[in-house]
């Protein structure tokens, strides 16, 4: 059976049914193109023959409308192609657009019934229909920008013409997904339906009532809402809009630039010329490394992750009803806040009732600030949170998250006290950010139930959970931790044990480089700017200010103590010495203490503390190439990730990429910490790392596994 079925009813309405053979969702690949061309010629033939009163476009897949472009196809395209090949790609795109253009110009009314998610190419098909109806609750949108692309099958052109430049821009540039009701409100669809039968009835009734339907942009005298680029109403949009976009993307996202330019360029010309312009921008993105990075990580690897590639197979999914949290600090309270929002009952236990109550107060404050949470909802969520100072209240919790101080003795004590009351099969998860899980598990009598669940602060906002398996952690415990993370709406990566696991260990390298460069006398402003220009959300100096030098200092002392206790020896580094001076000599203990690498003047923007220059660059700043500063800040992280992979701390490349972007602010446009090496080219990366090692220290020496991998011609996949 073909991809598209045509079934004419007794009223002369042709059901135009997408039903890709062998797939659960329809996609826009090579077979789509062929089927579309064939189906459109058949439709045209039947219209010419007479008796066709309209077209009803729908999906043959239950609850699935159309997923969009085939990203696997796109990933297989060669990036370095000659102009001849680029021309072929451009012509191919224009051929994909044509049947959709033909569809809206058939001369008969065309309605579409969106019975499930309509994303990207799927929504572009819908936009080519005159009348759009969706089932209540289904999601739709043009999310291409999130993977470095843009709508290239007429979606950018049509949405701009439908809504106007300023309304279309955020929907496309941010790749927003809209529910049917929101889409209706914004004018993206015309109607909603409760079920497929009602949707078909509505669509066909509309077809019968509107024999002369046409797209607004094909109607004489139609003007794009909000006006044209040169109109006074768009002055700010034209003059300040591009700067605002660059401010957000640091000019590192070609897709956002292309989308902005394309929306404005397309508004200046007729529809068919606009289609050409859209095609040209799309070609530039299809052949862009950034898009390739983002497709790899945010589509392929993310999909594998969400599907549960890391979750042990054959274990039934756990749906949690009640969990316990030890420690009502910001982290514990943050986890409780979102757990309650997901309908899970939470017991927050702290040392006394006053501390425990603070955790619940925190949740109340977060709900009050959240515009999407109304009073009734907040009350409901808060009713799910109970605060206590009594371990006994944790008795029926299915999983415990320990979020107390990073102090081995305290952690050991609460582990024993908790295990005394909870069920034998309850999971005990430590939210430590760095202490090895197997070592903490020594305090447990049920080591197979002991696991790491590393949330990021603020837990109610940060999307990642790093799950750490100790030596003896059971598959069942891992599966439960994984299920809870997903139930909380987080993306879980799974790693093996080791100091700092993957994320903390990796971010530590860039923080060290930042501090090291300060001690080398490099201008701290350049260090912070280099991080920004790499695409990092915060610089390495600001990051320490946030964590606080005081905490870093204490962690350092703990690490030193551990190392000595384990007979490993300890060497002071420029970094530990800098932190020591910051805390003990300069009394700049971090942002919460009012002073760090930055000054925090009241009511004004923070700025770099001039004392750093006085302490480390009294004769003037050390001048090294800006590119070196930038490379030092990210090469160290990528190299550390390679070591994590080599040592087995990392179990997959996808975990590294996604964990680095979602957990520690590695630049998204790189596709993550290992994809960045692919993009740079393994051999070029090794060569550059060696140059950096020679100039800036052994931290940049490429690990053997990387050299071997390059020798095999193998990418990180």
């Amino acid at each position: 059976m073909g991809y598209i079925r045509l079934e004419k009813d007794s009223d002369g309405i042709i059901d135009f049914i997408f039903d890709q053979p062998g797939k659960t969702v329809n996609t826009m690949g090579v077979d789509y193109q062929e089927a579309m061309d064939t189906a459109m010629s058949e439709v045209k033939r039947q219209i010419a023959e007479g008796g066709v009163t309209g077209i009803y476009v729908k999906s043959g897949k239950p609850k699935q409308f159309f997923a969009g472009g085939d990203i696997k196809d796109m990933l297989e395209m060669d990036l370095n192609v000659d102009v001849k090949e680029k021309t072929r790609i451009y012509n191919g795109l224009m051929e994909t657009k044509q049947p959709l253009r033909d569809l809206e110009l058939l001369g008969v009314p065309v309605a579409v019934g969106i019975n499930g998610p309509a994303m990207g190419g799927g929504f572009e098909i819908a936009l080519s229909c005159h009348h759009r109806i969706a089932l209540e609750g289904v999601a739709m949108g043009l999310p291409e920008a999130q993977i470095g692309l843009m709508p290239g099958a007429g979606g950018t052109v049509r949405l701009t013409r439908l809504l106007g430049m300023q309304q279309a821009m955020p929907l496309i540039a941010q790749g927003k997904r809209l529910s049917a009701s929101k889409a209706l409100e914004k004018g993206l669809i015309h109607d909603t339906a409760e079920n497929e039968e009602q949707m078909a009835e509505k669509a066909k009734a509309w077809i019968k009532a509107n024999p002369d339907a046409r797209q607004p942009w094909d109607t004489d005298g139609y003007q794009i809402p909000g006006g044209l680029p040169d109109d006074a109403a768009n002055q700010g949009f034209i003059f300040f809009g591009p700067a605002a976009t660059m401010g957000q993307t640091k000019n590192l996202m070609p897709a956002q630039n292309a989308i902005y330019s394309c929306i404005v360029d397309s508004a200046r010309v007729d529809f068919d010329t606009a289609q050409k312009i859209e095609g040209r921008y799309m070609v530039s993105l299809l052949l862009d490394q950034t898009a390739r990075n983002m497709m790899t990580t945010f589509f392929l690897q993310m999909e594998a992750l969400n599907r549960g590639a890391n979750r042990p197979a054959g274990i039934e999914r756990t749906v949690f009803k009640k969990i316990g949290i030890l420690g009502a600090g910001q982290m514990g309270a943050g986890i409780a806040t979102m757990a309650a929002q997901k309908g899970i009952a939470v017991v927050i236990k702290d040392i006394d009732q006053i501390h425990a109550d603070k955790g619940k107060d925190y949740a109340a404050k977060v709900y009050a600030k959240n515009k999407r949470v109304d009073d009734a909802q907040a009350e409901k969520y808060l009713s799910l949170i109970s605060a206590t100072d009594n371990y006994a209240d944790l008795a029926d919790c299915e999983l415990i998250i320990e979020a107390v101080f990073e102090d081995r003795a305290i952690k050991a004590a609460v582990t024993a006290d908790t295990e005394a009351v909870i069920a034998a099969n309850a999971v005990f998860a430590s939210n430590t950010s760095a202490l090895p899980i197997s070592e903490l598990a020594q305090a447990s009598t049920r080591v197979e139930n002991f696991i790491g669940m590393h949330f990021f602060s603020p837990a109610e906002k940060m999307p990642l959970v790093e799950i750490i398996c100790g030596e003896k952690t059971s598959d069942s415990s891992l599966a439960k931790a994984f299920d809870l993370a997903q139930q909380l709406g987080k993306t879980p990566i799974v790693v093996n044990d080791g100091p700092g696991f993957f994320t903390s260990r990796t971010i530590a390298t860039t923080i060290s480089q930042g501090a090291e460069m300060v001690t080398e006398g490099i201008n701290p402003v350049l260090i912070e700017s280099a991080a920004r220009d790499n695409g990092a959300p915060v610089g390495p100096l600001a990051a320490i200010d946030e964590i606080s030098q005081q905490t870093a200092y204490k962690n350092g002392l703990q690490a030193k103590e551990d190392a000595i206790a384990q007979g490993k020896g300890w060497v002071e580094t420029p970094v530990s010495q800098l932190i020591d001076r910051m805390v003990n000599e300069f009394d700049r203990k971090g942002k919460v203490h009012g002073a760090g690498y930055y000054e925090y003047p009241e009511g004004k923007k923070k700025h770099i503390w001039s004392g750093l220059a006085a302490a480390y660059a009294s004769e003037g700043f050390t001048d090294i190439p800006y590119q070196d500063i930038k490379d030092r800040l990210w090469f160290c992280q990528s190299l550390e990730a390679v070591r994590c992979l080599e040592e087995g701390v990392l179990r997959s490349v996808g975990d590294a990429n996604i964990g680095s972007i979602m957990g520690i602010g590695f630049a998204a446009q790189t596709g993550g910490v290992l994809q960045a090496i692919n993009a740079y080219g393994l051999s070029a990366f090794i060569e550059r790392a060696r140059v950096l090692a020679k100039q800036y220290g052994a931290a940049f020496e490429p690990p053997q596994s990387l050299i071997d991998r390059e020798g095999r011609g193998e990418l990180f996949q």
Partner: protein
Amino acid sequence: MTTEAYIYDAIRTPRGIGKPGKGSLFEVKPIDLVTNLLEAMKTRNDLDTTQVDDVIIATGDPVNEQGSNLAKTAINYSSWDSVTTGAQIHRYCAGALDAVNVSAAKVMAGMEDLVCGGGVESLSRVGMGASGGAITDPAVQMKSLFISQGLGADLMASLDGFTREDVDRYALMSQVRAAHARDNGYFKSLVPVVDFNGVTILDHDELIRATSMDSLASLKPSFKMFNDFGHGDVARLRYPQVEEIDNIHTPGNSSGIVDGAGLVLLGNKAAGDAQGLKPRARIVSFATTGSEPTIMLAGPVPAAQKALKKAGMTINDIDLVELNEAFASVVLRFQRELNVEDERINVNGGAIAMGHPIGATGAMILGVLLDELERRDLRTGLCTLCAAGGIGIATIIERV
């Protein structure tokens, strides 16, 4: 003693039909037409752009997408070094040749070493007359006896006694010559317009069309409406000897409406040597002059005479002439007044066949002239245009 100014290169885009939604260059912003040529000029000549002092770009309507000193904006937007400065000039249809002349003058004066002059016009995107302007101000019109330019062409033909058949015959020759030149690859100076992926958008002059005397004869006069709406009466205030203006100009024998750009690289000997460039021709002389503004199209003859006089030459010393085919009657008058036979003028056709992108044409036809002098291995050429306001412009070049 002036410095010699040499032409090192002269390039142009193809001319695309200048109508929204119809022409291939409608999707191309004027700045991209310019940057296409800047990039091509740099690549073709392996040019160290830090050594180029200035780029002067003419535009017929320097507003909207063609406004704000398009030359400098294009340099900053292109891969050229930003040390090169840019200026925009406006001299109606004479603009691009004037940009070349001004560039040459800077070199000759010894003040600059390498300079680009050229022009750009997107009639599809910006449109003729987009800048409005003083020329149509009522008080100005009434005092200077302004009429539509096309009616000026009809008026000039009536005064000169040219008939519809005369102008159509010339138009047919332009089409035939342009098609022949295109088919035989004579337009060496043509650089395809590409998008930011390098994909070709247009690589040939798309207005050239097969035609015949019969089909030309069937076309309706373009400027009768202007005649009948009062401009004819104004014309007769200036030319009482004209009883009736014969509206002989049609879309078939007037210049076509197109988009395009042209760019010429000029410089002194030392600057060219330093870049390893071979001079293709030298600028012998140039001139601008004003003529009676109601007809406004009679400038080429006096401008050519002025340039010839400056050069100490006569028209017989000129091997080939490129005169912009604004209207067929402009060329016929020039041929008659200066006794220039068909074989020496517009030998590869002109704006009637290929179109006239107002501010860009002067640089384009200078390149066409130079290509043809080289192909025929001839020595001297004269390039001239009429322009609104009665402006005439002429440049004489000599191959070296």
